[in-house]
């Protein structure tokens, strides 16, 4: 044991607490100016990076042969979005299945099996980055650099463009002419993702992350064994992996690996990045639409949900496993199983909740080893899917929740529904309901199928019983929400998991984007009506409470029976014994 006295520990927990408070405060402090900047970028206003990127932007448009100034309808926008995104499907499939003979493969990594390649491809192009392989043994440098690395930039740009066009559609006017998809797409990459990740990569480099194309380092240990230390161009990878909420690790251990996350400082930066873009885009909405109070309402509801997930998780981790305490073992460090000593209990618990409430999916510890309640909170974050949520998709998901709340709330005050000066009608409600039930549908049906074919799934479970159930539902919820983290422990590289998760990621990713853009596009086409004293106010605490309650009752409670069979049953079994 590292610490001998309880006093030292108490002091240490305080320091760790301080650490996470600093992370959170720094994240919010960075998000607000970043949100303002993002709003400017999408509105086409002047920014300090224009001089560098304007020529590049023009060059790209010429290369792509598009007129980015030409407006698009919401349908055209979606077609462009899906085309740009899905073009990567055949390319990625090809590379992953042929990486064995392609160049830049010093460690002679084998080609992926078709089902693994299918899963990985879908998972990459959707920004989910759920990995059923380990990077150091499953991906060549070529695949990492020419597939994963560009997709780290391109896939968050896709969702950011969808979000930007929703912003654009919600501006108070009646039009079907929305800004061009390519305009937002290229700007998201050049003005937002590239500069921030570039600066961060340099910081990471100075903190000792490797940046090399040489193969694994080999040396002989004192015992005479040969040891391989995998490495690669990690610093550049890591910054965009975190910023873009991609979360796909270079190594299987992800950010628990010392090359991906060497010290507490990089841990803090990476943790800030978990939430930075999701929160900044919320503020960007406020700046873009000039409705700052609305942004604060959204941020407030998200934060409330986040804290409600965080507190039980941290509490459970700090207390540690009561079964171990009963055995008379000093458990005062909390539950350290599966955690890195250099991060500690608190920061790891905090990370796990940020990773699952934002849809990053990068891990710095083993979620499978968390206490059942913490695991349940991680799952709930993924299940709710909008407490910060992914880049762009977080705001889009919340937008859907707002439409639902606006409809019910307006009825409650005797009005028909209206949001940002637009009447919400039957068609919007129809889409809203489909999207609302999609995520429970995919996660629950997936898990139900897995339970129904025990011959295919039971051997892959690391634990029997309730915990095994948690492993399954976590996997599907993570796939459906594009979080991409794994509870792990699950032997997920089998055709069953690869194929089912692949399809669930696909539906779970694109349908909500299509739905949200469609609703916004339809609203944009409607007549703009100002707000009056009788219309519902969406930018105050009362409405926030309504949205929060709806998210809780509709989304979270749909998972309640499943959670009861998994983490809740496990938790009470441990406590009662």
């Amino acid at each position, binding site marked *: 044991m590292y610490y001998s006295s309880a006093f030292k520990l108490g002091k240490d927990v305080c320091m760790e607490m301080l650490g996470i408070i600093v992370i959170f405060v720094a994240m919010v402090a960075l998000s607000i100016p970043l949100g303002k900047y993002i709003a400017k970028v999408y509105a086409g206003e002047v920014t300090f990076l224009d001089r560098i990127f304007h020529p590049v932007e023009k060059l790209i448009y010429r290369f792509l042969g598009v007129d980015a100034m030409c407006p698009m309808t919401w349908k055209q926008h979606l077609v462009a979005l899906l085309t740009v995104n899905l073009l990567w499907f055949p390319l990625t499939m090809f590379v992953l299945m042929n990486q064995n003979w392609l160049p830049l493969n010093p460690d002679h990594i084998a080609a992926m099996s078709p089902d693994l390649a299918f899963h990985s491809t879908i998972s990459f192009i959707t920004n989910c980055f759920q990995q059923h392989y380990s990077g150091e043994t499953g991906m060549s440098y070529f695949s990492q650099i020419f597939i994963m690395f560009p997709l780290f930039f391109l896939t968050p740009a896709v969702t950011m463009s969808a979000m930007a066009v929703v912003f654009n559609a919600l501006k108070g006017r009646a039009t079907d002419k929305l800004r061009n998809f390519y305009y937002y797409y290229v700007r998201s990459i050049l003005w937002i993702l590239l500069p921030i990740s570039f600066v961060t990569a340099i910081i990471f480099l100075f903190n000792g992350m490797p940046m090399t194309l040489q193969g694994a380092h080999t040396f002989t240990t004192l015992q005479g064994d040969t040891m391989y230390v995998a490495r690669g161009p990690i610093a550049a990878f890591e910054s965009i992996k975190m910023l873009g909420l991609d979360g796909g690790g270079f190594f299987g251990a992800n950010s628990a690996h010392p090359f991906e996350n060497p010290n507490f400082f990089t841990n803090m930066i990476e943790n800030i990045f978990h939430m930075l873009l999701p929160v900044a885009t919320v503020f960007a909405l406020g700046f873009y639409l000039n409705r700052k109070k609305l942004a604060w309402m959204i941020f407030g509801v998200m934060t409330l949900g986040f804290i409600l997930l965080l507190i039980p998780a941290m509490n459970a981790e700090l207390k540690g496993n009561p079964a171990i305490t009963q055995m008379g073992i000093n458990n005062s460090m909390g539950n350290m199983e599966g955690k890195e000593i250099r991060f500690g209990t608190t920061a790891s618990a905090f990370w796990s909740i940020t990773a699952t409430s934002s849809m990053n999916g990068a891990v710095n510890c083993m979620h499978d080893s968390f206490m059942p309640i913490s695991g349940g909170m991680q799952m709930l974050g993924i299940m709710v899917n909008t407490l910060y949520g992914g880049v762009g998709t977080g705001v889009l998901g919340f937008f859907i929740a707002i439409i639902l709340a606006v409809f019910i709330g307006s*009825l*409650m005050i*005797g009005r028909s529904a209206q949001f940002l000066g637009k009447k919400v*009608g039957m068609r919007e409600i129809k889409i809203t309901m489909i999207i609302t039930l999609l995520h429970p549908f995919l996660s629950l049906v997936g898990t*139900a199928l897995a*339970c129904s074919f025990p011959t295919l799934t039971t051997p892959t479970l690391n634990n029997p019983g309730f915990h095994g159930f948690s492993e399954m539902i976590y996997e599907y919820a993570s796939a459906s929400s594009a979080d991409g983290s794994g509870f792990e422990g699950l032997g997920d590289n089998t055709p069953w998991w690869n194929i089912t998760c692949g399809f669930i990621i696909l539906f779970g990713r694109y349908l909500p984007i299509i739905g949200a853009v469609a609703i916004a596009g339809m609203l944009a086409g409607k007549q703009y009506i100002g707000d009056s*004293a009788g219309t519902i106010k969406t930018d105050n605490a009362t409405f926030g409470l309504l949205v929060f309650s709806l998210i809780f009752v*509709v989304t979270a409670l749909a998972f309640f*029976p499943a959670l*009861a069979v998994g983490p809740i049953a496990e938790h009470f079994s441990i406590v009662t014994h």
Partner: protein
Amino acid sequence: MKRNRKEGLFKSDLVFEAIKQSFIKLNPKNQFRNPVMFTVEIGTFVMMVVCAWILAGEKSQGSFIYNLTIFLILLLTLLFANFAEALAEARGKAQAASLRKTREDTPAKRIQILGEIFLNEIHIVPSSQLVKGDMFICETGDIIPTDGEIIEGIATIDESAITGESAPVVRESGGDKSSVTGGTKVLSDKIKVRVTTEPGESFLDKMIALVEGASRQKTPNEIALTILLAGFTLVFIIVCITLQPFASYAKTPIPISAYISLFVCLIPTTIGGLLSAIGISGMDRALRANVIAKSGKAVETAGDLDVLLLDKTGTITIGNRKATNFYAAKGVDKDHLIKCAVMSSMADETPEGKSIIELGGINPQSLQVDNPTFIKFTAETRSSGIDFGNTQIRKGAYDAMKNKVEKAGNMFPAGTIEDVKKISSNGGTPLVVLENNVVLGVIELQDIIKTGIFERFERLRKMGVKTVMVTGDNPLTAKYIAEKAGVDDYIAEAKPEDKMAYIRKEQATGKLVAMMGDGTNDAPALAQADVGVAMNSGTSAAKEAGNMVDLDNDPTKLIEIVEIGKQLLMTRGTLTTFSIANDVAKYFAIVPALFITSIPALQRINIMNLHSPSSAILSAIIFNAIIIPMLIPLALKGVAYKPIGASALLRRNLLVYGLGGILVPFIGIKLIDMLVALCM
């Protein structure tokens, strides 16, 4: 609006009829329109099959009695929901029947244009034989057989059968008061009427069909809400179906009855069961306010209105101006002014004239006038008065009087000019009084703003409704009255086209506009408005153009209509919230009950400490069933609307129906469980 208000919700004959209908409505064809209750019906059917299966010897599903109980409770849930709808319909029907009584076949004196012997013979036919375009006559004591328009004559008519108002009204040909309604009674004189509607198509007939629910179509908002509820139902179908594999993974056999119970509890049956009752009773409430809405959509739109166009006269001010003050000219005795003013008004039958006498406080009979000649008001002279002996007294408009005085070579006193200006700028009308072309002083006539109207407009403002006063007055007077009454805007010197233009302008910015009108020239604007309320006394063109008809001819009715519309939407919204919020407690009742036998640890989430798994499930579905009839009064009466601003109202309703919706079932289920435990 005075009738029927005090009737109880549960009159025995209505209840009896509703109970009968509840069973008839079990027909799946009927239930299919309502996806929530339709799934409950399927669940009930499945339970019936399970009961039969157990009788056939199946052992895995628990006892027969238990399953039968669940089947019966589910059946009861369906019946309760049907009962709510049937009761709303029965109430509508009763209301309609009382209207229909007035439409029973009455003899009509039809004019046969080309008779057997003469032209224009009069034949007595039953009213049902009258078709559009026919003409009939009505004399003193006749019941008017059907809706029509007077083309000849004038009559006083007792409309109490329709409006409940006992004072007779005057109807005459031409002008805006030419319309008569079937079922009303001619008290004096004789009129010739042209039939304006086909038999069975008059407003009343349409209305009767609407409240009876026969021709009720779902409104857009109701459809949207149905979609929402169907969506929730689907979520819970998924939750319950996927639970089966989860349970088999956890090696927990769950009987079919438990799945069905969980499902029925989770889907929004409360609002689903009450939804159509709410819609019907919205129409019914409008009818109780003596407003005939031509569609449910019109009532719903009323709740959403942004702008109300209100006629000044009758709505904001009491019909007529009143004298409020006398201002004597310099050197004139005020009593003399008053005496002359009264004399000039002796023969003045106008309400203004009468009010001058009233204010003067002198009995005109007591004044000595020899051989008087009364001069009537004409548009040319713009004055009226009296001549007797050598005295000539006139009262009239300022500029006309000024001309007259100056022509006679007299001075118009500066002090009086001041008075005139002051009166005008205060929204009043000055009448200058002359005696032999010498100015005596001014009478101030004021519009009397109805008491309480300021508060009503304040109330509307808090609802987010903008009020616009429409008046023929000059802008100065209009502005003054507008400010005093508290309306937001006004249209002065308004012509019918101005109303139309104003409505178009507001609609162009996406606002919903309502207006009330009675004249033929109001018809285009009534048609243009989102809610056009025609007065029943108005022309048939106006009634045809509007989408509501006010039987009371009460211009302030618009305000009431807005509240009825809001109530309709609010009742839907709050009960939806209540229904969804109920799920929290139901989860906590049923989920532990499902797993407790095989996962004893889950006893810890049995936070209500319910007696046993089967008592928990029973209590949850019993609660789910009985909450429906308990909320019927609320659904039929509507949630009270409080104009306290959108956010405060939302906060209040969230607290009452949201938080209440979470807490009530915890208490209710626990209490029921205690009772059930006693029986087990």
